[in-house]
């Protein structure tokens, strides 16, 4: 069952088109990885879902009901964790949660139960400490705790791990995974390993347009499973020669200290060897590695890709 359906969503800031017709389908009880570079339109899309800004066109349908520009009632079922959670620094975490519970409309007894549960589930340390003394990671946990109070049908998370240390990031991903059976999560990130490890489905946005949508497996299996890597002392000349004459290449890109190549469907590794031999090009290493989501992301989006 589709819980969130976005069709042809458009938003401009002056002459800049932030969203050029975004389409998203989020099924109930899945973790949807909404990935894209910084500035691709992820936060704008999430802000549009939350009605934090007006859009120029398109529709957002949540739980079968279209969301109007002035609607607020649907937020009873939708929680939002912003990329940089900010809370009044003069309140303790517990007071912040209490205030959240009041804004949600919980009575005192239910609020206390849910606050205890949220503190426990998010492992929120020092709940009676003022939020002003909290680290970024603790504020993220508090934001998630506030979101959990609502027991939402849909949880929107905007780059929640982008500023966390590795341990904080691992813990947060575990927490997100543990929520999977209770709620649907739209998880925005540019960290693809995070998306690959927790998401059922991926949507790739670039310059306000969706480039890909599907399960991680279907996206990876729809492409050549390998990326080929060349290391050489004369990287520039190898790059130019391959780019100019290698007809078996789909794309080639200059990376830090090596070249990366995608081959056309009909080509294989021996075509590279033959070409290098024929052209008398010396290289140090030719290797291949199995593609992950990062490679697909770079292949689809990176401007440094040179299509051959």
């Amino acid at each position, binding site marked *: 069952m589709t819980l969130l359906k976005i069709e042809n969503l458009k938003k401009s800031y002056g002459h800049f088109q932030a969203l050029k017709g975004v389409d998203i389908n989020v099924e109930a009880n899945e973790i949807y990885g909404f990935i894209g570079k910084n500035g691709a339109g992820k936060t704008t899309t999430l802000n549009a879902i939350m009605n*934090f*800004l007006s859009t120029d066109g398109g529709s957002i349908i949540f739980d079968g009901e279209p969301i109007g520009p002035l609607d607020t009632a649907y937020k*009873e079922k*939708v929680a*939002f964790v912003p990329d940089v959670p*900010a809370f009044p620094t003069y309140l303790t975490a517990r007071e912040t949660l209490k*205030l959240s519970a009041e*804004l*949600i409309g919980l009575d005192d007894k239910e609020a206390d139960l849910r606050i205890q549960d949220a503190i426990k589930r998010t492992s929120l340390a020092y709940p009676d400490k003022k939020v002003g003394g909290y680290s970024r990671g603790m504020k993220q946990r508090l934001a998630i705790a506030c979101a959990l109070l609502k027991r939402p049908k849909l949880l929107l998370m905007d780059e929640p791990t982008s500023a966390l240390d590795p341990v904080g990031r691992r813990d947060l991903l575990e927490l997100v995974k543990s929520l999977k059976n209770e709620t649907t999560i739209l998880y925005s990130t540019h960290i693809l390993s995070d998306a690959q490890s927790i998401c059922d489905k991926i949507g790739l946005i670039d310059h306000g347009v969706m480039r890909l949508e599907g399960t991680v497996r279907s996206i990876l299996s729809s492409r050549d499973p390998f990326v080929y890597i060349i290391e050489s002392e004369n990287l520039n000349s190898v790059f130019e020669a391959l780019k100019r004459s290698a007809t078996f290449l789909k794309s080639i890109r200059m990376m830090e200290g090596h070249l990366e190549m995608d081959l056309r469907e009909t080509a294989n590794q021996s075509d590279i060897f033959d070409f290098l031999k024929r052209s008398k090009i010396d290289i140090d290493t030719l290797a291949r590695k199995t593609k992950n989501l990062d490679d697909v992301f770079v292949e689809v989006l990176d401007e440094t890709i040179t299509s051959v």
Partner: protein
Amino acid sequence: MMSSWRCSMKPLLRYELFYFTKTSRLIVLGAVAFILSALAALSARYMHEILAYVFRQEGIEPPPMDPVTVADAYVEFFSQYAQIYVLVLLFIAVGAFTHDRTKNHYPFIFSHGTRKNHYVSAKFIMIVAAMLVSLAVGVLSFFFYAQVLFGTFDFLRFFGGVALFVLFMIFLIVFAGLVTFATGSYVIGLVVSIGAYILMTSITFVDFGVFGYLPNQLINQANLFVVGDGEPRVLFMTSLISVVVTVLLYLATLKVFSRKPLS
């Protein structure tokens, strides 16, 4: 359990109350009111002595002066408040209007379905409440000092003047709210509000036709009322028009903020 889709005013008022109490703004406002009130009574009572001392220091015999009365203290009270208290209140009010935007608290507040008109109303209510609490402190301290120094106090007259002053302050707060929510800027909100205040109080001499009943005449009217020179018809008309203008500004603020993006 989840209540029916609810009015968010109560938690919003609590949120604003926390802001005023836990950040000491209420204490600052109350302290300013207390000090200004004490100063007003003391300076009115001893102004002649101070002037006479200054004259004698210069070797000049002080001119004869009318004996001071409690009415001089009333006038001094409004003068002190119009010069200092108003500015302090504007600083605090504009800060309260922009605080959530500049500190990025909007996602926390509005992701729960909080209505924008409730949010704006809660801000206005709590700022006005903070002003009334601080004024209560100021009025009580003024009453104490005036009673001790002058031995008399006309409650009715003084409270009438304070009521007119409060009406003017509410108008000014709502005006500052409109400018600040429209621009989203602390600096612009503050500069425009203070500029408008200075302009309004400096053109009170323009009092022909409807100009004689606009909100900027309220402080003048308060001064006239406490010394017993207030004209009931003018007082009534000025108050009525001020209330109408304030309500219109409030509605305009709701409209302006309803169109503002929250990100």
